[in-house]
């Protein structure tokens, strides 16, 4: 089984975020980490490899700093890595990103392609799905469990309200992985040491010219404005008898605040 894991570097969850001058995204000078669902996707891929054998390859797109994500994945046990290296990838929307990834995948087929369920920064939850469409292969989202089944696989998907769905699907396929489905391993010091010598291939944006000719300008989605929500305080006195007041509160909690 040859598995590709698509991983993204995102701003650290507890980093204080500052908006860029245009107010369209955050400034570059924050700390970064691996997108959380992608870390679980990698863990799942490594477990599949341990169970069924094969190879785990990791891919990311982003500036030079994003290479850290790949090194960490290699240290944890991935066999090799591919880095689509360019600052412009930071501004790519899901479609553009999927096009870039698809161009690489068409040149080297995989049995399974994992992405995280969504990214912690943009949060589109679209890249994996669009990628499957571009490659013309099936996909399943919010995957919690993967088992071999005949020539294909059987996956468990998380639905709403505590429901699960089991889907049989052929290979190759794209799966978007849910956070928390396994226990993440540590990168051991030996793994970190060995990662230095594992193959890491770099692909420039120019090499992907035919797939994403306009770069970020080819985006279909655009962030108009990013802003920190204004904190406001509003005190309202509810009049009437206790019974009336209770009724009003319930109504407000249900329809205005929407907590019950």
């Amino acid at each position, binding site marked *: 089984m040859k598995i590709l894991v698509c991983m993204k570097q995102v701003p650290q969850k*507890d980093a*204080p975020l500052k908006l860029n001058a245009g107010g369209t995204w955050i400034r570059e*000078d924050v700390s970064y980490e691996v997108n959380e669902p992608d870390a679980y996707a990698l863990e799942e891929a490594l477990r599949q490899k341990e169970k069924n054998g094969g190879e785990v390859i990791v891919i990311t797109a982003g500036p030079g700093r994003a*290479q*850290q994500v790949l*090194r*960490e994945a290699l*240290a944890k046990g991935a066999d090799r890595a591919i880095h689509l290296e360019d600052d412009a990838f930071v501004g790519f929307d899901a479609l553009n990103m999927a096009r870039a990834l698809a161009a690489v995948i068409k040149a080297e087929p995989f049995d399974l392609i994992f992405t995280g369920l969504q990214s912690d920064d943009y949060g589109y939850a679209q890249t994996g799905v669009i990628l499957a469409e571009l490659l013309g292969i099936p996909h399943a989202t919010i995957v919690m469990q993967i088992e071999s089944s005949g020539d294909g696989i059987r996956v468990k998907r998380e639905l709403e309200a505590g429901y699960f769905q089991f889907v049989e699907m052929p290979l190759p396929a794209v799966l978007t992985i849910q956070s928390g489905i396994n226990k993440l391993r*540590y*990168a*051991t*010091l*030996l793994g*970190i*040491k060995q*990662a*230095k010598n594992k193959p890491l291939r770099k692909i420039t944006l120019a090499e992907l010219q035919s797939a994403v000719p306009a770069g970020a300008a080819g985006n279909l989605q655009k962030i108009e404005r990013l802003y920190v929500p204004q904190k406001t305080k509003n005190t309202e006195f509810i009049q009437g008898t206790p019974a009336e007041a209770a009724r009003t509160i319930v109504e407000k909690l249900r329809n205005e605040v929407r907590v019950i």
Partner: protein
Amino acid sequence: MLQSCIPQEIFTPEDFTEQQQLIGKTAEEFAVNEIDPNIPKMESKDFSVSRELIRKAADLGLCAVEVPEAYGGLEMDKISASIIAERIAKYAGFATTWGAHSGIGLLPIVYFGNEAQKRKYLPKLISGEVIGAYALSEASSGSDALNCRARAQLSPDGKHYLLNGEKMWITNAGFAGLFTVFAKVGGERFTAFLVERNSPGLSIGPEEHKMGIRGSSTCPLLLNDCKVPAENVLGEIGKGHIIAFNILNIGRFKLGAMCVGGAKEALRNSVQYAKERKAFGTVIAAFGLVREKLARMAASIYTSESMVYRTVGLMDAALFAVDRAGSQTSIEVRKAIEEYAIECSIVKVWASEMLDYVVDESVQIYGGYGFVEEYPAERVYRDARINRIFEGTNEINRLIIAGFLLKRAANGELPLSTAIKKFMDEVLGPLPLQENTSSFAGEIQYIANTKRIGLFVAGVASQKYMQAIQEEQEVMAAIADIVMEIYAMESATLRAQKMSSKLSGAAAANSLDMARLCLAHGMEKIENSARKILSAASEDDALRTNLAILRRLTKVEPFNLIAISRQIAARVLERGQYAPN
């Protein structure tokens, strides 16, 4: 002290490689996920948890960093070793256990063991199957370890030694499987032995009730005709002192790194509390006096962090040149490390005193809550105190700093007397201005002047006391204080300079602010120490002239420390923790 240094020459945390960052991440995650949830159990002396954690740490490779690959180790650089020590030190109780095991427990064999001893013990130690410990101190000998009373007698058939005596303050003794024990063969020849826990005649005394690091095991070791095979002599008979002192020298820089890690944690907790606690209708983090504390805590951490990584960077550069294939590798490695013994002592003393300052202010920020066990400040305050005592008391280390320096000058290894003479010749003329037009010209002038003060007082003191200066402990310690502050001020400033070339805006300004706070406080300390030395070593007219010279050297452009502190504090509060940029 004898020449100026440029930013590109020093290693800083901003220079960590991708690999070193990943190592830091693994150690950090281990501390957060594995150590942190188990603190209450370890504090109540459930050492089965500590044992298990050492095994887990070993699985990740955290106990094999400084062991050669030939024995299953990772043979990594000292920078990585320091990064790990810093991260593990979030909780001092376990950090002590781990530090004793992977440092003084295991390194005597790495550096002094023979092939058979290395093959036999190192794999079990780095896997965490056996825990290591180091038994040097006794009830009546600590800093003067060579006065130990423990005795070793070779059996008539020459097959084993019988050890008798008692060792005290042995970290990990409660569960260690292997001890490096020092005893005198025939009552005279100071020697190290590798003693297994199940050796007949070895028993472990009860746990000590300690002020701090209660999450670590500390017991006495009782040797009653303890039978040790003759092949377990470590190093040479009668040469135990080489092991005893070197092992402490070799490990000292890591203690500095641990103090930095502990202080960062204390600051993080303090910031969090200051942002929550309200007084007079506002959070106490809004008050100038609280902000002043936070700023100075951050700047002290920044300074010791700069010193630690500058020092290990120097050590790694020296170790890089060592021929790994040679048969004398471990000896050469040891010598390369010894070259930086002064810096390691400086780091140990400065960082342990920094930590005590930080945890003290942390208690103060917590107020009454800092004095009760329910909040973290109280334990951390108690835990910090031991760092000024173990691995060589700070007093002994001060004597090492000044002693080594003067010894190297006397041997001609350091051109100290030439530098002193040059300074004395030029001192009565106009002071040469530092040729520097960079934005750091003021800071560079500070450092240049403190170096002159160092040479000046060393010159005056050596003239007065000559060789007998080694007996003048107060003078020696004051010289050490000046040397330490110079190293601190320079490390902090060079790092800020280096960062300013990579960063811009508030990020670069923050490190410069912290360096300036360090310069201002450092200059104060240096002036006091210099005054003390000059007043003891000269009198009447000579003293007045000397003090006038000192005044000229301490006359530097002052910084607006209140404004600087407010800026640093704002940054700390914004980040919620220590941040160099």
